[in-house]
């Protein structure tokens, strides 16, 4: 009993630690005072003003567009790359796999500066395009690592069977292979989307002047104090994601139950 109590208490402490800053941000989003250091009364006004703050809105817009585009493109490139790695012989496979791990294992700051040097070297103007490219580059490995295990589980004879039964290779790919790979592809996409949404370090080095994502916008405001609208926005985003995740969880639970009943 005592042990049980200690375990619960321990988990509770850790969760308090994890959620304390989030609680602070929620509270600050309702703080009428512009300064985070004092409480000026309860207000909803930042939630309204948020939509009139063109700086924050354009940063949000850039962040979302980059996240959607980079995740989509990285998913396509990563899936094709995973198939090519899967099909290559042993030595090239090992070399390719190790090269795939480089962006994951490299410290973000090194990836960031290396890409910055690269873009400047090839005279690509730092801006939207370089942020997008940067995000695609660090997302591709995560897609590969999620699709590869699915490729290994794949029974390659089903693809051949489809061909024997008269499907064209394209048809066989879309109707036989793709559905099997889909869970890995979707996980890869969601991971990429999340990483892109939250990335700061790489964006910071490759973004150039005049464009901001939410992360770099927040960083630029750290010294002079973050605008309360930002707390409101992050609270909205957090709640949206919480609700979405809960819905997805509920649905997959239901599906599992159904599958369990069927099985």
């Amino acid at each position, binding site marked *: 009993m005592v042990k049980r109590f200690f375990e619960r208490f*321990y*988990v509770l402490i*850790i*969760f308090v630690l*994890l959620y*304390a*800053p*989030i609680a*602070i*941000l929620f509270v*600050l989003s309702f703080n009428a005072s512009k300064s*985070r*250091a004092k409480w000026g009364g309860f207000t909803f006004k930042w939630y309204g003003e948020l939509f009139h703050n063109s700086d924050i809105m354009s940063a949000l817009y850039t962040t979302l567009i980059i996240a959607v585009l980079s995740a989509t493109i990285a998913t396509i*490139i990563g899936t*094709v*790359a995973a198939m*090519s*790695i899967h*099909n*290559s012989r042993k030595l*090239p496979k*090992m070399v*390719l*796999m*190790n*090269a795939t791990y*480089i*962006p994951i*294992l*490299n*410290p*973000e*700051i*090194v990836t960031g*500066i*290396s*890409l*910055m*040097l*690269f873009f400047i070297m090839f005279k690509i103007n730092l801006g939207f395009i370089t942020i997008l*490219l940067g995000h695609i*580059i660090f997302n*591709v490995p995560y897609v590969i690592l999620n699709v590869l295990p699915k490729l290994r589980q794949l029974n390659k004879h089903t693809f051949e069977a489809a061909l024997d039964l008269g499907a064209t*290779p394209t048809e066989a*790919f879309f109707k036989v292979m793709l559905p099997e790979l889909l869970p890995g592809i979707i996980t890869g996409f969601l991971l990429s989307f*999340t990483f892109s949404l*939250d990335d*700061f370090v790489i964006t910071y*080095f490759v973004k150039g002047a005049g464009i901001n994502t939410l*992360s770099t916008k*927040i*960083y630029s405001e*750290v010294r002079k104090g*973050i605008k309360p609208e*930002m707390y409101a926005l*992050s609270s909205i*985003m*957090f709640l949206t994601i919480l609700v979405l*995740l809960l819905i997805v*969880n509920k649905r997959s639970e239901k599906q599992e139950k159904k599958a369990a009943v069927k099985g």
Partner: protein
Amino acid sequence: MNKKLLASPYIIWILIFTILPLALVIYYGFTAQTPDGIVFTLDNIKKISDPLYWKAFLLSARLSLLCTVICLILAYPLALILAKSGNGKKTLLVFFMILPMWMNFLLRTYAWLNLLEGNGVINTILQFFGIPKQQLVNTPFAVVLGMVYNFLPFMVLPIYNVLIKIDDSLIQASSDLGANKFVTFRKIIFPLSLPGVISGITMVFVPAITTFVISDILGGGKIQLIGNIIEQEFTFASNWHTGSGLSLVLMVIILFSMAIISKFDKDGEGAGLW
């Protein structure tokens, strides 16, 4: 499908977007801009021994090691508790463990200022118990706290993932053969969880030793880590050669420590070369 044709685009992709940028860091790290043009030099590498840089590097190493140890101590019991809780509860707890990561990490780190400040939450609680105000913000303590806060899930999740895969029958066999709980842990559970511990250590140590954001926000510019130095060389100082040289040193040190750590991973779940 022509298999050979399929493989070549990805090789080109890697060469252009992964290898070439890194080669540029090496190029800048080993060269200097002089009136006679660009010349080969080791000066950028040697700059790590410059007292200013060396101090920053030592501080980074100390704080990130401390952060890794604290994360390990906090995470292991937590992963054990998570791994043995009931199925539904397990998923829920892991879900709430990951959830905070969906709030921007800069904002979450920034919010710690409100907790740590002179009139912040923690000091208010301390005063309630009659403990005098503590200077918490802009100290190495605050930076380590920020690191632990941000990277703790990266330690918990890999350990948890390994622990849930351990076959229960091994633990039963161990107790059938007369081992008590402590011996079972020391001889069965802990050795089997080592791959998770090792990937946790790398996932915490690497971002911690290279961070410049956490030290910037919670150190208020007073705590200079090697990450801050490198960042400033690239942004304010525009000295790419020095910045690249220092990054190379940092990379080599990280690779070296990862090689040492992975020696403990006998099964070698890593990817070949690394």
